[in-house]
């Protein structure tokens, strides 16, 4: 921009100088500048003003929002722990041939004993132990145990270390250290995709019984799809009613949609807990009118059913509002025309009305779907074990008992990629500009 401004000023000076000298008949403004230049200048100015107005928000969001997302992306591939805490080992292990089938030599063992002793002293050994434990279980206890004794180990290191714990015999451990000694790793993304390094060094799927996240992603997508469908089925008749009623009563009924929309998410989740729990309102009513026995109360919550019901309720207004605003624009005369041409009410509705509402259903559907796949709070409170989504796993890897930030970041990035695909679709189909609120 500055260089353009500079050029422009230079050009302007030149033109002004020329103006006095010659009059070549070009159209000029009152102060003698060629009209084309004046127009260009005005356009540039208004463009600059628009950019300057947007700039503060843009900079604000880059710092508070975009950089954090990139930080997360960075965390999902970053892996400095091993190189940082086992510096001697990663140098020595370079010479070891991992395809040889024999343990590394004495030098590597000496290096790792010294690294462990230092790590123990700096209290950093736990970090590397946890990192290695992500890949091979039992590594945390191996490092803790050996770390305690590392300070006292004398040569021959290899023999001594193997005497402390046989697990140092594990070739996979050494392969792991050699593979992950760099600053970046693909192992978090592999784990998030249920893949792993095979003993021959290649990459393959995990054994069937250890594939977790694929099922989780499938479950998240399936539940979100189901919730979106339920929302559409429930929203359609209601939106149609709201759009066709006279303005006054329509607006009055609209309050019934807007109030839940404006009510706190936690309030609505709390309500569903009160309704669905085994001593809750619905079970009590069913017992009260004798449909079920007191001791065979239905399990309506802390399972998939709870998640589906509560989330459908919470997301329903997001489907009703776009559908309503599209239906509002369909002239009633279309249906009358269809009827007068001999269509039955049903045919007129299906052939004339419904195709006109596709845009609204698409907008609401994508919006609900995007919101649903990232949901955390409601599934965490009413989902139990079978109704939790990918977000709940991400959260538990960040703050739960099984901390693994790299894996959380990798799972988060995969979820984000899915959401962005749908966001892109939304933008193409609806246009972000057309997003309406309230």
């Amino acid at each position, binding site marked *: 921009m500055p260089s353009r401004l500079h050029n422009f000023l230079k050009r302007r000076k030149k033109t002004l100088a020329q103006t006095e000298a010659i009059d070549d008949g070009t159209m000029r403004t009152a102060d003698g500048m060629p009209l084309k230049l004046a127009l260009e200048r005005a356009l540039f100015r208004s463009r600059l003003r628009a950019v300057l107005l947007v700039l503060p928000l843009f900079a604000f969001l880059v710092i508070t929002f975009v950089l*954090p997302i990139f930080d997360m992306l960075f965390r999902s591939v970053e892996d400095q722990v091993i190189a940082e805490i086992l510096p001697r080992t990663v140098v020595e292990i370079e010479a070891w041939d991992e395809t040889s089938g024999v343990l590394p030599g004495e030098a590597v063992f000496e290096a790792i004993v010294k690294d462990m002793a230092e790590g123990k002293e700096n209290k950093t050994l736990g970090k590397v132990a946890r990192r290695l434990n992500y890949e091979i279980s039992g590594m945390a206890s191996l490092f803790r145990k050996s770390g305690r004794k590392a300070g006292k180990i004398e040569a021959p290191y290899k023999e001594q270390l193997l005497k402390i714990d046989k697990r140092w015999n594990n070739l996979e451990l050494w392969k792991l250290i050699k593979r992950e000694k760099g600053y970046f790793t693909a192992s978090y993304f592999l784990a998030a995709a249920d893949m792993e390094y095979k003993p021959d060094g290649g990459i393959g799927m995990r054994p069937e019984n250890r594939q977790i996240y694929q099922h989780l992603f499938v479950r998240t997508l399936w539940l979100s799809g189901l919730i979106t469908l339920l929302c559409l089925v429930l929203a359609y008749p209601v939106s149609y009613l709201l759009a066709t009623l006279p303005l006054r009563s329509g607006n009055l009924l609209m309050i019934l949609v807007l109030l839940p929309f404006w009510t706190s998410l*936690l309030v609505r989740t709390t309500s569903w807990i009160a309704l669905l729990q085994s001593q809750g309102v619905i079970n009590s009513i069913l017992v009260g009118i004798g449909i079920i026995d007191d001791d065979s109360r239905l399990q309506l919550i802390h399972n998939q059913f709870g998640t589906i019901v509560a989330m459908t309720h919470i997301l329903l207004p997001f489907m009703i509002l776009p559908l309503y605003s599209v239906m509002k624009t369909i002239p009633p005369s279309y249906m009358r025309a269809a009827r007068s041409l001999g269509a039955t009410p049903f045919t007129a509705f299906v052939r004339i009305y419904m195709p006109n509402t596709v845009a609204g259903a698409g907008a609401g559907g994508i919006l609900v779907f995007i919101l649903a796949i*990232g949901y955390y709070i409601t599934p965490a409170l009413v989902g139990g074990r079978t109704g939790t989504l990918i977000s709940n796993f991400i959260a538990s890897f960040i703050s739960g008992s099984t901390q693994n930030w790299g894996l959380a970041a990798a799972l988060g990035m995969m979820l984000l990629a899915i959401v962005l695909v749908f966001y892109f679709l939304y933008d193409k189909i609806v246009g972000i500009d057309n997003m309406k609120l309230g």
Partner: protein
Amino acid sequence: MSSLQPYAGKLERTWFYTYRTICAAIFVFLIAPIFVIFPLSFNELPYFTFTPEMLSLDPAGYSTKWYAEFFTEQSWRDAVANSFFIAIFATLMSTTVGTVAALGLSSPAMPFRSAVMAILISPMIVPLIISAAGMFFFYSRIGLASTHLGVILAHAALGTPFVVITVTATLVGFDHSLTRAAASLGSNPTRTFFKVIVPLILPGVISGALFAFITSFDEVVVVLFVGSVEQRTIPWKMFSGIREEIRPTILAVATLLVLISMLLLTMLELLRRRNERLRGLSPG
């Protein structure tokens, strides 16, 4: 469908009433869960359910002690103070930068308009858990984690898309000849902004601010990750309350929150009518 014609046949009549019943059922599904907590919050016993005394309308089954607990317990009072403090500052921040940006975005001269808009709206689209995790990682690096400022910045970022959307929507109907008229009458741009533009876009700004406020006021995921006990807000207290020990105090709080939403909804509706009146549309 909106009304039954006198000449409607039997089938049409049946369908009409069936359809109305279906709609009524869906409206009940939408609204009943919100109102069911009202009576439950006056429960005498510490349960989330109707006791026999309550069902027989025995006054002894009802009490306001959960409300008393909410208003007297220090941790709830701290939560209320934190919630308002964070929400007000986040709203001020997001409304200011959001409104200014919306003015720029509405200008036809804005380059790369849709790409920029896509980025500005993204905090609304990116799943909260991802925003929260990313902010937790990044804010920890720069020392903003577990501070009020950190939570305020995070909430302000989440609130800006709403301000941008509502204010640009108001500006769509904005008549730019008004600013030219002001200029031709000798008003400088600053004066024009405050005397002509602001009064006209004010409904949009206020409703955007209300959206930003409620976004922050209801938000729990980001507070859970970026904040600590010091930044404990009302939703945080409710979330941990539901997870640990369920007490009807949560229902009392929930009831009060519903009342606040009703207030906000009324304000928004009034603003919408004013906006449409100003733009020469008939109030709907």
